[in-house]
């Protein structure tokens, strides 16, 4: 996983609540056995006018000009501004993979679905929860101001507007540490290998039927 550095990036607004994982990456693209290449099919059914299938050349497909990510002013966006319960539905990590592969590094919303939220951290995509009032404010700003950019400073847990308004957010200390240092969680867990073995042995003695 790459280290998460402070950056300033363009914001794109996705003004819909309950955006589900089927919308983020439709299931026909889950047939891949790879981890990369999902960005071109992010929000496929909203983004293109034709029906997408794996293997299609995106440059030959007809874009839906109404869809927010297709608008010229949001090209190159790195921060997605979203509404409540973003990422509900399936546990597919393909959803965060596709957002990241498209170029997003941060998603800001008033709330996220649990599994999606958790999956984001595992790949170095930062989900930020800000209160509904703040998110409303940001939607207004991004829609009215061209080239609206925000700075995300994970170390200080702050989202900073062009006018230097600072919105602080919460993040779990361990997850923050992993993101800032680009740490591999499996490696960290294996530092406790002895403890795991001891635990397992105790469990085997107490509930032997679990190990049959």
């Amino acid at each position, binding site marked *: 996983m790459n280290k998460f550095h402070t950056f300033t990036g363009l914001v794109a607004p996705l003004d819909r609540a309950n955006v589900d994982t089927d919308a983020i990456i439709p299931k026909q693209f889950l047939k891949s*056995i790879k*981890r990369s290449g999902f960005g071109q099919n992010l929000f496929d059914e909203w983004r293109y006018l034709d029906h997408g299938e794996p293997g299609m050349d995106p440059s030959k497909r007809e874009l839906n000009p109404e869809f927010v990510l297709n608008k010229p002013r949001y090209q190159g966006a790195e921060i997605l501004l979203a509404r409540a319960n973003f990422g509900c539905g399936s546990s597919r990590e393909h959803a965060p993979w596709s957002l990241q592969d498209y170029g997003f590094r941060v998603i800001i919303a008033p709330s996220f679905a*649990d599994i999606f939220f958790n999956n984001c951290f595992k790949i170095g995509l930062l989900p930020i929860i800000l209160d509904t009032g703040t998110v409303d404010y940001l939607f207004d700003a991004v829609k009215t101001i061209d080239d609206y950019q925000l700075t995300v400073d994970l170390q200080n847990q702050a989202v900073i507007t062009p006018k230097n308004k600072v919105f602080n957010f919460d993040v779990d200390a361990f997850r923050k540490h992993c993101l800032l240092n680009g740490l591999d969680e499996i490696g960290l867990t294996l530092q406790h290998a002895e403890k*795991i073995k001891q635990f397992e042995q105790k469990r085997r003695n107490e509930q032997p039927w679990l190990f*049959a």
Partner: protein
Amino acid sequence: MQTLYDKLWSQHVVHAESDDSDSMTLIYIDRHLVHEVTSPQAFESLKLAGRKPWRLNSILAVADHNVPTTDRSHGIHDPISRLQVDTLDQNCDELGITEFKMNDVRQGIVHVIGPEQGATLPGMTVVCGDSHTSTHGAFGCLAFGIGTSEVEHVLATQCLLMKKSKTMQISVEGDLGWGITAKDIALAIIGEIGTAGGTGYAIEFSGSAIRALSMEGRMTLCNMAIEAGARAGMVAVDDITINYIKGRPFAPQGELWDKAVVYWRTLHSDADAIFDRTVTLDAEQIKPQVTWGTSPEMVTAIDGTVPDPSHIADEGKRHDIEQALNYMGLRPNTPIRQIMLDKIFIGSCTNSRIEDLRAAAQIVNGKHIAANIKQALVVPGSGLVKKQAEQEGLDQIFLSAGFEWREPGCSMCLAMNDDRLAAGERCASTSNRNFEGRQGPGGRTHLVSPAMAAAAAIAGHFVDVREMNQ
């Protein structure tokens, strides 16, 4: 005074970063279920890192999402689906993981076969790279869906790093009316608390109506906990749980069985346990439920109507309803009973167990699907469910009523194989998600119970199944 969740959690703590209940904790995983869609990348990275699975006999694998539900003797014709299933077979063979292959009679939807085999036991932590892993909580275990990175993490370490959830008790008291099922309870709950209502919580379902449910019903209910936003749903262990498990292939036997049962009987919330949130529903008030929108919370009773967005004050809500009605091709104020259907799907990890098939067969017995129904599918949850249904003659009841009787798998629940809706087609489905495009691009899904889907197949539109209780 612990809740069931507290007991399950504390039994599995390997290491906690601090005493703070909010800190990341290393939790031991007893059972790891694996399917073909969310595992290939995990196996690949595991191999690249030079690691091996920590405990092979904790893993049970099956292909379910991509498998065809028609004749399987020629294999899978879609090359990309085939590659995914082949990759799972290869990984399991190479590593020595127990897998039920496509032509094994034990093959089926991962959330059906775990309990069916006794691979899901009370007191376990059960994970799978699939959100509907919550299903297994019906057995008084802690079961939840994980992403692919976590699949790899469990393979490599037998543990997961996680934070403790808050607890919610949903208590359903009283007797359900005739024709009302666990599916209706689940949809009524989601209608009440919303699809984000359970976010951050582990839900325990309790109350006399839940205790009266069969294991199949409890699984249906816990399956839908994720649709209410909760990662885990659970029900306390009782005689019904223990009787269901007894004699299953992976269940303990003899002395071990007796020892296990003693422990399992402790798996309930203490009488004075305190939950972070409590919701109570009156079972007698629950009517057959039908969703009208593109989220499971967009639901009403069979005698209801499609909502009128012009009566909704909140701008965001109004906008969501307008968008949903537009996608669903529904006009405001249409009575639910007048919604005409094109297809019927009875199946999915929510409602494809033997009891579900019996309930649907009871309704269609001796009748025929309406002329406007283009296709009606019954897809059993596993090869063993299929076999049992055939022994009971249910297949014949469905076939003579004009249904198709298929091989087990996820099928039209998410349309990753060939079973899908065409754009604009409307389906009464016993699955769990009515998201846009879920059953095929442009397809329109209404979630209902198996009995309601069966009744709709006969009528050609939604009807109140209770009227068929003659």
